[in-house]
């Protein structure tokens, strides 16, 4: 094993112009000099799978809430015998994770507790999950009910007559706190089933890997995958709308017009009205869907940017006109799933093995729909409402002249928003102008510069010395971080034109690469290009009809990107470490999704 190590975060300097960046994030999420010895003893890897871009200060709450909540289940609820939570830091604008192992002497004592606690959830999975849906829907409804608007000129007369004795700033502050609470709550729910879902999937996965040495990851995924998947519903709704448009003969109206104009024209005919009704019907809840990944305030959601789903529908319509099939072939997926399962099962040596296979697969199939679907309910739907409400609040500040753009609010940490609210409420109460409009724009500009400077440098793949063997199950499962992949990153400079990653979805193609840094750049993709990116989001699926293959820097076997690529039969290599910096737009590359290799043929 190599003794090579990654750079220490203490030696990894921020780009010029980013001085003072640490103040933008909570003190407990950055590296401190007095803890150097401690922190350098830990291995950190960059999670650019979920957070590929530099955080605005407010947005850091997504990593804070989610990774904290992941930890609470491992450490305090299930007592996963060998694994506590995952420590996380923000460094130079990107986030880095460090799995926390359990002291080996304590592992044995955790086993019976884990059996009781996790066992209860596995045994009552369906009923608990039914309740989970109610809880999450409850949170979403509560968030939807909250409104942020400018303070009135005077306190409502009814409040006076009812002797309320409060003013609207009280509720405004309370509502802001409530939104943060609800967001925190929904991230707890996010992990309520996820860790156990991964554990059960991993159990079946490990059994297959041991029983059928060399079995492709894809085989395991295909045996487990669901056929009707909520996560794919938004895309399926668009496909339905495209088909309806063709059926009703509205394709030309769609193709030749922007959304508003198209809707206006359709209002004038019966067919058009039918289509509009279908379009309206599809919105809730399925357009609460982002082209990002839910972790950034800048993520755009379909429901707020209807031109996005509309453009996808257009492109589906064009493909239908060319005679292509656009549906997810559910019957075929189901039949293939059954065939694969039966053939592997028939390959088992005996009854004991078949029983173990049946039991493990059975459990994996019970848990897997959650693993696929939670993403829609939390990252898409819940976070869609959360970010919309936060923008609604920011719009109030914009109207009050605190700053110019709705996005500006996110340059403040979440607790700093309290100061803005108090500043606003205080001025309103006293009848004097708030201080914000004079003070904040310069501060926002200063912070913008820092963030922009941070964004000029890509993150490091990891910090410090990697462990001899990566054993933390969730790290392996979710991030695809294995001893092998870490060593691969360390030696990535020496691999010439070849990159090695995870064989996420089979198929071999050659083509021209296009580097995509964000969802905004998706529109640059040309037919038949290969998308190379740090990470993909499931909501990018509609562009998959256009491209030949996908290559990502990071991602495990269960990453959202891997799941979606497999569903759509698109060759994919994930977790290459540095494809998006090593490959340049215009390079001719060869992708082998079955072998997990990418080769640069010519530049």
């Amino acid at each position: 094993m190599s003794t090579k190590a990654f750079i220490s975060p203490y030696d990894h300097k921020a780009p010029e112009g980013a001085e003072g960046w640490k103040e933008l994030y909570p003190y407990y999420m950055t590296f401190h000099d007095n803890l150097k010895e401690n922190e350098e003893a830990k291995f950190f890897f960059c999670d650019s799978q979920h957070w590929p871009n530099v955080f605005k200060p407010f947005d850091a709450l997504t990593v804070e809430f989610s990774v904290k909540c992941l930890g609470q289940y491992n450490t305090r609820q299930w007592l996963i015998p060998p694994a506590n939570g995952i420590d996380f830091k923000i460094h130079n604008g990107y986030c880095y994770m460090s799995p926390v192992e359990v002291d080996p002497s304590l592992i044995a004592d955790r086993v019976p507790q884990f059996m009781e606690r996790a066992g209860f959830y596995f045994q009552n999975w369906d009923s608990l999950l039914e309740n989970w849906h109610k809880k999450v829907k409850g949170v979403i409804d509560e968030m939807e009910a909250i409104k942020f608007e400018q303070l009135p000129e005077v306190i409502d007369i009814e409040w006076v007559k009812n002797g309320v004795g409060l003013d609207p700033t009280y509720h405004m502050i309370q509502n802001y706190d409530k939104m943060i609470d609800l967001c925190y709550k929904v991230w707890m729910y996010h992990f309520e089933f996820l860790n156990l879902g991964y554990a059960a999937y991993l159990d079946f996965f490990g059994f297959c890997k041991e029983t059928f040495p060399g079995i492709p990851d894809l085989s395991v995924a295909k045996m487990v995958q669901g056929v009707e998947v909520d996560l794919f519903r938004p895309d399926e709704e668009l496909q339905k709308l495209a088909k309806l448009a063709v059926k009703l003969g509205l394709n030309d109206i769609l193709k030749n017009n922007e959304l508003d104009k198209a809707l206006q024209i359709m209002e004038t005919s019966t067919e058009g009205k039918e289509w509009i009704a279908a379009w309206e019907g599809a919105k809730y809840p399925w357009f609460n869907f982002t082209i990002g990944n839910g972790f950034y305030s800048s993520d755009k959601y379909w429901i707020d940017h209807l031109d996005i789903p509309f453009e996808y529908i257009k492109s589906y319509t064009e493909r239908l006109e060319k005679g292509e099939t656009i549906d997810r072939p559910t019957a075929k997926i189901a039949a293939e799933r059954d065939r694969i399962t039966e053939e592997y099962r028939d390959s088992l040596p005996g009854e004991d093995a078949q029983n173990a296979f049946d039991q493990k697969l059975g459990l994996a199939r019970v848990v897997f729909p959650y693993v696929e679907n939670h993403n829609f309910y939390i990252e898409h739907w819940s976070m869609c409402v959360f970010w919309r409400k936060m923008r609604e609040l920011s719009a109030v500040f914009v109207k009050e002249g605190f700053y110019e753009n709705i996005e500006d609010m996110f340059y403040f940490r979440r607790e700093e928003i309290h100061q803005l609210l108090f500043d606003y409420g205080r001025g309103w109460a006293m009848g004097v102008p708030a201080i914000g409009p004079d003070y904040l724009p310069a501060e926002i500009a200063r912070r913008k510069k820092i963030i922009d400077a941070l964004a000029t440098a890509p993150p490091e793949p990891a910090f410090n010395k990697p462990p001899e063997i990566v054993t933390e199950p969730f790290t392996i499962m979710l991030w695809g971080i294995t001893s092998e992949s870490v060593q691969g990153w360390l030696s990535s400079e020496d691999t010439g034109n070849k990159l090695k990653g995870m064989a996420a979805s089979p198929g071999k193609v050659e083509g021209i690469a296009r580097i995509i840094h964000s969802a905004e750049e998706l529109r640059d993709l040309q037919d038949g290009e290969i998308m190379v990116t740090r990470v993909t989001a499931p909501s990018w699926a509609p562009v998959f009809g256009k491209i030949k293959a996908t290559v990502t820097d990071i991602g495990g076997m269960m990453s959202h990107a891997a799941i979606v690529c497999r569903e759509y039969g698109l060759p994919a290599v994930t977790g290459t470490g540095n494809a998006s910096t090593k490959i340049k737009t215009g390079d001719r590359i060869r992708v082998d999704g079955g072998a997990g290799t990418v080769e640069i043929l010519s530049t």
Partner: protein
Amino acid sequence: MKYTLFFKEAKPEEYILLGGKGASLASMSAADFPVPMGFSVTTHAYSKFLEEGKLLDVILEKVSCIDCTNTDQLESNSAEIRQLILDKPLPNDVEIAIKDSYKQLCEKAGIPNALPVAVRSSATAEDLPDASFAGQQDTYLWIVGEDEVLKNVRKCWASLFTARAINYRKNQNIDETELLMSVVIQKMVNARTAGVAMTMNPINGDRSKIVIDSSWGLGEAVVSGEVTPDNFLVDKIMLQIIVSNIQEKNIEHVPDMFNKCVVIREIETERAKEPSLSEEEVIEICKISKIIEKHYKCPQDIEWAIDADLPEGENVTLLQSRPETVWSQKTIERKALTGMEGIIDTLMNPIGTKK
């Protein structure tokens, strides 16, 4: 009394007359697998030959007095028996039957009286699931003309009595009186590449895999171990190549058309290092292997060739298939923890950390 039977016309109840290899070819032909056409010289022909030449008693006596620890005696008795078989004239009706069938085969192939064939022995005790007789009997390749065919049929019969074969049977206590021999006469394949496919991983008994060994030319180089063949490990269910080890294959067995024999030829370095099968061909062989395994309902050891004379996509030819004999008789114990114990085991020993 049928002395010859074409693969296609042999009925299952007649398979007993064909020996292991012949029966396998007949049943594969019946199932419409891509087997080169041919016929078997049945065990009746061999019996008739022994009977008419009054050879059986002589042979049995010579064999029974052999003391296997006495190598000289083993060798000399073996040589005497084989010479007897090579010298005795064939019964007339047997000779006519073989000549007739060969003629028919030549006509079917469109090369009257001159079709190159492979002549292979197919003993009744051979290829039984409980005794891997592989390689105990002989194969003669690129045989042309009826006289040569007759000569080599006899050589096959004689090969039952090589010192090695006699020794093997004595050690295995196989009854000499039960021993019968059939001979397979089959259209020669102009093999660009040939090898074996096993419908399981012989390293670990994993039945979800197919393992292919492959080298340039006729399959003899692979079977005899004269070259280190290319090796492919394929997932049987997904038909996906998991590992391909391309080796330097320095020699190949190829027909010498002029001298009507097979010669060993050195391969130029560049071609030696090239894969002897394209990925598409690997997958095609696996597809066919899968069907064969399903047909016979147990793991198979299949000899195949890529026929240079046939178009791509139809060029995989099967030479024989027999049950895999090693793993099929083992019971593989797979102790896997289930339920919560299984999950704990997985969490404590995640993938990549297990020894």
